[in-house]
């Protein structure tokens, strides 16, 4: 089977996991690669854990969902238990260090478990609004699925109209992306 990068992002509604997956998918698509992104969706409008399934490959991709992720990111306490089933022995599991979670609640089967202070840094150094872009940086650094440059282009494509009104926002987003990458580099 062709090498497929499988990324699963889970968090509370409003944390922006779906936008991260969508921007990454578009970045991969712009690089001319195959990408399939599907959100989990159900009857709930609010209140469930929001999960995004993203796959990127150089060849056509099979089923839109998958059993085991290469990287699984959980951004809330509930998300940690919800996504446990997608963690295998080759999975890098990333969660936010602000989540109060007992050691045994973490998926011990993972290849690596990384705790990153994404929430804290977004709040203190940047702006809570760019929290998801910081997570995107972390995913890029952990997987190398798309280049930093292509990710920036995809952000520009999506938020360019906002950047036009306030160029500082561009800088803020780019910094969030870079900080996310640094966090994983340091944690690794």
């Amino acid at each position, binding site marked *: 089977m062709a090498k497929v990068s499988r990324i699963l992002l889970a968090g509370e509604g409003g944390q922006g996991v779906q936008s991260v997956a969508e921007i990454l998918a578009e970045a991969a698509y712009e690089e001319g690669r195959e*990408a399939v992104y*599907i959100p989990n969706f159900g009857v709930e409008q609010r209140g469930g854990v929001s999960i995004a399934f993203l796959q990127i490959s150089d060849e056509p991709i*099979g*089923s839109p*969902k998958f059993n085991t992720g290469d990287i699984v990111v959980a951004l809330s306490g509930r998300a940690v238990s919800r996504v446990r089933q997608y963690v295998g022995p080759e999975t890098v599991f990333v969660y936010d260090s602000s989540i109060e979670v007992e050691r045994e609640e973490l998926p011990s089967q993972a290849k690596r478990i990384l705790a990153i202070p994404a929430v804290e840094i977004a709040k203190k150094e940047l702006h809570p609004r760019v929290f998801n872009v910081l997570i995107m940086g972390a995913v890029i650094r952990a997987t190398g699925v798309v280049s930093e440059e292509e990710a920036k282009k995809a952000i520009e494509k999506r938020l360019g109209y906002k950047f036009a009104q306030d160029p500082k926002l561009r800088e803020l987003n780019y910094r969030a992306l870079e900080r996310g990458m640094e966090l994983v580099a340091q944690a690794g």
Partner: protein
Amino acid sequence: MPGKPIEGEKRVFMTGNEVVAWAALAAGAEIMYGYPITPQNEIMHYWTRLAPKFGREFLQTEDELSAGFTTIGGVLAGKKAFTATAGPGNTLMQEPMSMAEAMRLPTVVVIQQRGGPSTGTVIYSQQEVTMTTLGGNGEGMRIVYSTATHQELFDYTIKAFNTAWKYRFPTFILGDGYQAKAREPLTIYDPELRGITMVPAEPLVGKPGVPGVDRPPVHLRNTYNVEEELYELVGSLVRDFERIAPEVAEYEAFGLDDAVLAVVSHGVVSRACKAAVKELREAGYKVGYFRPVTLRPLAVPALQEAAQKAGRFLVVESAQGQLARLLKDALYGSTAEMLPLYKPGMGITAEDVVARVKEILG
């Protein structure tokens, strides 16, 4: 005159529902009738956003019965009309589509399957196969394309309009919640550019001239007084359907010549099966792949040949044997063994298929 919806061709990255809306525009669909139900809602949403720009129309009805019957009304008036639904909406849709079957009306219906029975889930399944191929009171004289990728959703939605208007049988695109909601790349295009000529629509009632003098009278019926009359009608439906079946039936297959087991699936599940069969073949397993594209009519001779070559089918579907039932009917008399991998209402991955094949072949 509004311009063409798609000039030339274009690489895009979008959801399956958006793909269907673009394909219907490109195919020259003039009006969509619909009632909201997940996971097909965005077909309506995109259509209502796009249609006015290209002089097309939309009518939201009070339910799916009405959406189906108004689609019939549109077709009778000579419009390329379509609707889209899912799950319990598909159940209601069977009543109008049975009428379309009786009157040979070229309706186009897009189904995005969700989990059942009843309200089930709004997410995904392949549990609407029996209903879409054979639903309604009647003999299931309808054409059903089961798509696997966004590219196919585009290609076959365009094709469905031509199939419907050429053969005058109700035509369905059978997708699912995964295809509806996932985003992936595809190329959308102006059909003309690809050498596809769209079959023109024409009014089926209210034609010019005096009936019986200038032209044969139009006599569209769904009610018959005597058994013999209905028997004659159904006979002609069956004969016509059987005559066109070899022309309409489509399938995809590989690796059957040396196969000791053929993995048979349809729709989005065939993507996982294709990946699994490729991987297994690379690892030296003699496994073949067969995928009917049309579930109605099935490509019966090709299926029989596959059964004869492989001798054993592994039928993989997100339903409890709905595809298998169609296959068994087509293969009556064959000694091919049929093994199941059924996960009703659940997604199936290549890993699931690989594991099952290894379990069978050891």
